[in-house]
C-alpha cells in the first residue's frame, strides 16, 4: 500500500493505517525535534506528542495545502514551542539551543570538539536564522518546505538563508583558524 493511499485512508477515517505513516516518518520527525532540543528524552516526549496529535487531527489534514511530512513538521514545531512555553517560562521559546547538547551523541572527542565549535557559531545566530540553516543543511528540506513549516514565504526563507550563510562566511577566517588548531 502506498503512502498516499494510507494517508487517504486515514483522512477518510480508517486510522488503522496510521501505523504505516508513523513508521515512515518517526525518524525524520524525531531528528527534526532533536535538532531543536538537543535532548533525547525531551525529543522523545515531543515526538510522542506529535504523533498522537497527528493521529487525532489526521482528518483535518488538507493535502492541497501541504505535504503530509510538512504537516507533521508543523505539528512538531508547534509542540516544541508549546513544550518550552510550559516548561521554561523565562526562556525564549524559540531559542532552545542552550539545552544540554552532546550527552547522547556518540562521537569521538576530536569530532565532538569540531562539532561543538561549529555549533558555537550556530548558537550565535538568531533562532529563526538557525532554524532555516538547520532545516536546509542538516535536514535537507527545500525552501518551499521550510516556508510551509515555518509559516514564512519561500522568498523570505531564501533571503534569510543567504544572509545567514554570508554572515557565517564572514566569520570563516575565525572558524578556519579554530578548525586548524583542532585538527593539528
Amino acid at each position, binding site marked *: 500500500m502506498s503512502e498516499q493511499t494510507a494517508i487517504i485512508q486515514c483522512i477518510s477515517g480508517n486510522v488503522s493505517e496510521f501505523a504505516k505513516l508513523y513508521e515512515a516518518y518517526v525518524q525524520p520527525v524525531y531528528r527534526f525535534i532533536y535538532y531543536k532540543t*538537543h535532548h533525547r528524552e525531551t525529543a522523545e516526549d515531543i515526538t510522542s506528542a506529535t504523533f498522537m496529535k497527528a493521529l487525532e487531527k489526521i482528518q483535518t489534514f488538507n493535502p492541497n495545502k501541504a505535504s503530509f511530512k510538512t504537516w507533521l513538521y508543523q505539528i512538531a514545531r508547534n509542540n516544541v514551542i508549546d513544550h518550552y512555553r510550559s516548561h521554561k517560562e523565562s526562556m525564549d521559546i524559540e531559542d532552545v539551543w542552550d539545552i544540554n547538547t552532546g550527552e547522547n*551523541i556518540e562521537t569521538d572527542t576530536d569530532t565532538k570538539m569540531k562539532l561543538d565549535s561549529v555549533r558555537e557559531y550556530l548558537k550565535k545566530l538568531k533562532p529563526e536564522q538557525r532554524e532555516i540553516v538547520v532545516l536546509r543543511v542538516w535536514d535537507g528540506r527545500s525552501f518551499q518546505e521550510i516556508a510551509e513549516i515555518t509559516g514564512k514565504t519561500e522568498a523570505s526563507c531564501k533571503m534569510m538563508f543567504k544572509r545567514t550563510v554570508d554572515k557565517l562566511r564572514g566569520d570563516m577566517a575565525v572558524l578556519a583558524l579554530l578548525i586548524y588548531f583542532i585538527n593539528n
Partner: protein
Amino acid sequence: MDKEIQKIIEDLYDMDPSLKKYEKEMEQLIKRLIEAKPDIKLNAEFVENLKRQLIQRTKDVSEADIPKFSGQFAVLRKLVYGLSGALAMALVIMVLISSNLIPIKSHKVFENYVTQKGDNAFVDFGNIQTSQDGQALYNNSGVGGGAPASEANYMAKTEEATVSAPMGDVAVRSMAVSGDTVSSPGVSEGSSGSGAIAPMPPYYGDPTYKYVYKGTLPEITEDKMNVYKYSTYTTDDSSLMNVLASFDFNLLNLKSFEGLKLDYINLSEKADDGYAITIDFNGGTISMNKRMEYWVLATEKCAGDAKCISNAGDVKPLTLADVPSDEEIIKISDSFFEKHGIKTDIYGKPVVNNEWKKYSQDFIPDTLSIIYPLMMDGKNAVDENGNPVGIGVNVNIREKEVASVWELRAQRYDSSLYEVEKSNEAILKLAENGGWNSFQYGDPNNIAEVELGEPTLSYMKIYDYSGNSFRADEYFVPAYIFPIVKRPDSMVDTWKQNVVVPIVKGLENNPPQAVPYGMMR
C-alpha cells in the same frame, strides 16, 4: 564536490551570483555545517513503545466522535444518532460500494437539530410571498400570465367580487400572480402579459362551496407557538474534498480551482439492477432510485405488443389480486430501510397512498407509494393541502422491491415563538371559504355545502419566495387541518381532501396567489 553541498551552493548562487567568487570558502563552510550535524540514533524501544500506544489510540479514535444534538422536537431530542447517523452510514456504504477502495468511517454529514431563536425572529407572515411570481408561474405552467394580483387584501376582494357579481357578468378577479394591485375590472385567464384583461369564462355550472364545521375547535392554550424555519444547509465537506483533491484527474488540475465545495454526489451500485443514489449537500437530502437503464417496467418491455405480452407470463397486466396488502408493501419498505440503515424514529406510522383506487381499478400501477410522515412536536407535518410530508418510498409491487426513496432529509431548523390566532370565529370563517389556499371560481348564487370533520393541529409547510436567494425560505407553521368528510356530487376536484387554516397571525390574510382558472379545472 559532494552533491548535497553543490546543490546548497548553487541555490545560493541563484540568489546572489556575487558569492561565486567565494566558492572555496562557501564549500568549506557548508561542509563544516553538515559535519556538525548531530549523529542521532533513535532508540528502538522508544519507537516500538510509541507504535503500540498509537495502535491503541487508533482504536479509541475510531470508537469516539459522538454527535451533538440540541433541539426541541421531543422525538428528535431522543435520537441524536437518528437520521444523521443513518445518512452518514448510507454515505459510507455508498462510497464503499462504488470504490471498493476506501473503507470510510462515519462522518457527521447530515445532522438533525433545532435551535430556538427569540420571539418573532423570522419574518412578518403578513408580508411574505407565499407563491412564485407571475413569470415563474407562467413559465412553469405554460398558461398565460394575466393580470397581476393584489396582495394582502386579495381574499377580501375575491369575496366581495364573488358575492356581488352576477353570473356571466364581469367581476374583479385576479387570476395570475404577483405585481401591482388590479386597477380595472376584468379577468384574465390564459392571456399572457401582465395586466391583460380578458372576459371571464363561464362558471360551467360550478357552485360556490361553503365548508362547514359543526363541532367545536380544540382549545389552544398558548398565546404563542413555535414556527420552524428550515436552516440554510451547510455541510462540512472538507474530508471528502480532501479525498477528491488527492486524486489526479489527468484531464485537469482540480487543485487549480479555489474554494471548491461539494454540491451533489451521484453514486450507483455496480449491479445492473442496482440503485443510483444522489446526495444533495446543499439541500441536505438523499434520494435513490432503481437504476433506470436496467429497470424497465415489465409492461414496457413489450411496448404494447399484445402477442409479446401474452407470451411473456411475467408482463401480464396486474390485477387487483396482485396488489399486496398495505402491511406487505410497508414491510418491503421497512426491510429496505433496515438493510440500509435508514432510521424512521422521528417519523410517524407509514401510510400507503391508495388514491389511485378512486380513479381506476382497471389499470394497476407497477409501483405504489408510501409516506413516512414527519412529526414535529408530536404533530403531523403537512403540505399546503394538508397532506403529510416526510420520506417518500415507491415500492414496485410486481418485483416486490423498493423502486425509489426521496426526501430522506436532515431535519435541522431554527424555531421562534409567534402569536397565534385564537379566535374560533376567525378560524372558522377562513375554513368556510375553503381555507387558506382555496380559490373559488363557482357561481356565487349557487351555494353547495361541504362538511368538514374534526380538525387536527398540525405543522404546515409553506415557502416564502420574497428573498433574493435561489432557494425559497421554508417554514413550518401551526395550522388546523380540517378533513373533508362529506362533499356534494357536484364537487369534481376530489383531490382536495382537507381545508387548511394556518393560525400564525398575519398569514391567514396572506394566502398564495390565485391559480388561473383553466389550471384549476
